[in-house]
């Protein structure tokens, strides 16, 4: 039975900007069990990084409580920090320092003995493909190499819980994929609990076992990505039919055929365009095509689009996360 690594109740954080009080986080409750990989997903300014900073004891909550790795973040911040790894949005390695120096410095910051931090640094340099870069200054590394160094710095103390704040922001797609491979490998090797923030939908979808959707400082959904998509968004099936008999199409696509989904029929270029919104679209598609054929209708084209986390966000908030990220 996994134990709880994070238990937060009613977390609130307000900031004073000039004379205005801004409520960045508005009463968040969240639990994370040992071994989970949880992604906080939301647009910029949603409150996900603020929540993460409260959980890492970097920022004191205005109200509410949080226990991380068994310790209260307000009353025992140093105990919390001794048990977590933190990879922030910036580059953790000091630019003027050499790679190995920073890993050793990090070990000293955690009070490790020299033989322990040297051995740990050597292991992480190898595991994160930083070999040959030990004597290079941090500023001479590429963006991807710096991020891998950040992961190594975050793992120097063998943390049972690792926080990553927007770990792949600013990296090219290849470096992003490479970093994720390394994070997954480290997780496999050390069995860590991981909590990360991201506004990349694909990352949250493919990497996280659980997605916590945050918007305007509140949790609007919290479930595994597939369940979120099942509950809050539909797959979309688009079928072309060589006919003008709209009623015939609607009659053929009975509720049991489309799984209770929604059917829209429109005329386009002398034929019908049928759009079915339903859960488990891939499983429904053969039945939909069969029902149309059985009704004597000729299918000219068929395609499907799986529900995405952006659809989930759109349905929950009325806004597209993809469009907000691009804006």
């Amino acid at each position: 039975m996994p134990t709880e690594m994070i238990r937060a109740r009613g977390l609130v954080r307000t900031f004073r900007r000039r004379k205005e009080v801004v409520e960045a986080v508005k009463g968040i409750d969240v639990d994370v069990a040992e071994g989970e990989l949880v992604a906080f997903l939301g647009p910029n300014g949603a409150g996900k990084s603020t929540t993460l900073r409260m959980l890492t004891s970097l920022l004191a909550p205005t109200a509410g409580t949080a226990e991380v790795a068994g310790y209260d973040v307000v009353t025992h911040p140093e105990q919390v920090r001794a048990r977590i790894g933190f990879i922030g949005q910036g580059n953790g390695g000091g630019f003027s320092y050499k790679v190995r120096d920073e890993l050793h410095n990090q070990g000293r910051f955690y009070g490790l003995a020299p033989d322990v931090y040297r051995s740990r640094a050597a292991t992480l340099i190898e595991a994160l493909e930083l070999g040959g870069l030990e004597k290079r200054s941090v500023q001479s590394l590429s963006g991807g190499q710096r991020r891998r160094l950040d992961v190594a710095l975050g793992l120097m103390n063998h943390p049972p819980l690792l926080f990553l704040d927007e770990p792949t922001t600013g990296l090219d797609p290849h470096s992003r994929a490479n970093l994720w491979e390394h994070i997954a490998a480290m997780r496999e090797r050390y069995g860590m609990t991981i909590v990360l923030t991201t506004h990349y939908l694909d990352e949250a979808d493919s990497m996280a076992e659980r997605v916590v959707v945050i918007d305007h400082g509140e949790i609007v959904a919290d479930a595994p990505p597939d369940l979120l998509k099942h509950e809050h968004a539909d797959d979309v099936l688009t079928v072309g039919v060589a006919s003008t008999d709209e009623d015939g199409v609607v009659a053929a696509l009975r509720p049991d055929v489309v799984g209770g989904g929604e059917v829209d029929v429109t005329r386009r270029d002398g034929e019908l365009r049928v759009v079915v919104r339903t859960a488990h679209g891939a499983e429904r598609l053969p039945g939909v095509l069969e029902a149309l054929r059985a009704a004597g209708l000729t299918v000219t084209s068929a395609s499907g689009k799986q529900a995405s986390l952006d659809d989930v966000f759109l349905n929950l908030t009325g806004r597209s996360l993809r469009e907000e990220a691009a804006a």
Partner: protein
Amino acid sequence: MTTAASVTTAAGADVEREAPRIVTRSGPGKLLADTWAVFTREILLTLRDPFTLIFSLLQPLIFLGLFGPLLTGAFGGGLGAPGAGGASTGDTLQWFVPGVIVMICLFGTSMTGSNLLYEVMTGSYERVLATPLGRSSILVGRALKEFAPLLVQGVIIALVCVPFGFTLYPLPALLGLVLLGVFGVGVGALSHALALASKNREWLFWGVQQSLLFPLLILSGMMLPLEAGPAWMQTASRFNPLTYMVDGERLLFAGRLDDPKVAWCAVAAVATCLVGIVVGIRATKKVV
């Protein structure tokens, strides 16, 4: 010794995980160990680049070589130096050297925040804050890094001046350097706080640092005696902690321990240190 624990992930996989390295210290031991860890990281770059140290040493020596004769000529024996009856170079140095040492301490430790600004911008400061290091150790360690090279500079300057008539009283001078170190930690912590308050506005840090530095310096009588100045300057100097540091350092470098001004120097050093650390810790908690 590494121990292993079996962990079941949420995905159901059993993973053999090495136990976390959790070192929990407390009290003065932790304060010292943390401060040492911060100091050794910070000083590493200075040790790797000794040319910076050499060039920064040249500056006060040139200052001393050019300014000293001017003072001798301008004020004769009226500098209040112990035993000053004429305008000898030795008398001038006895008055001027402690002032220069205080000056390099002030200039150096007030720069603590400038290095921090860069680390705040790149993100490495946040990484340091996410470790179990005590906040006061981060402040003190960084300030000591600025003070350590100055200590070496101060000793070298004093030794270089001995052949020119400067009399060195080792033990009182050592006490003077210790008090200067305490004062420097306070100035460094205040500079740290200023850097955090100026986050993303580098110009603000430099504007405030430069605007404060020179009035403090001039109103302390560090470079020129205030006795010849107007009454308002003499009054203002009484509210400047640096005045007490300069007065006390001059006495200590002259081998005088019995003067009450030495005690006031210690009070000014400790008070600056405490105020600096309190303000620095508050700034750290507020900004991060």
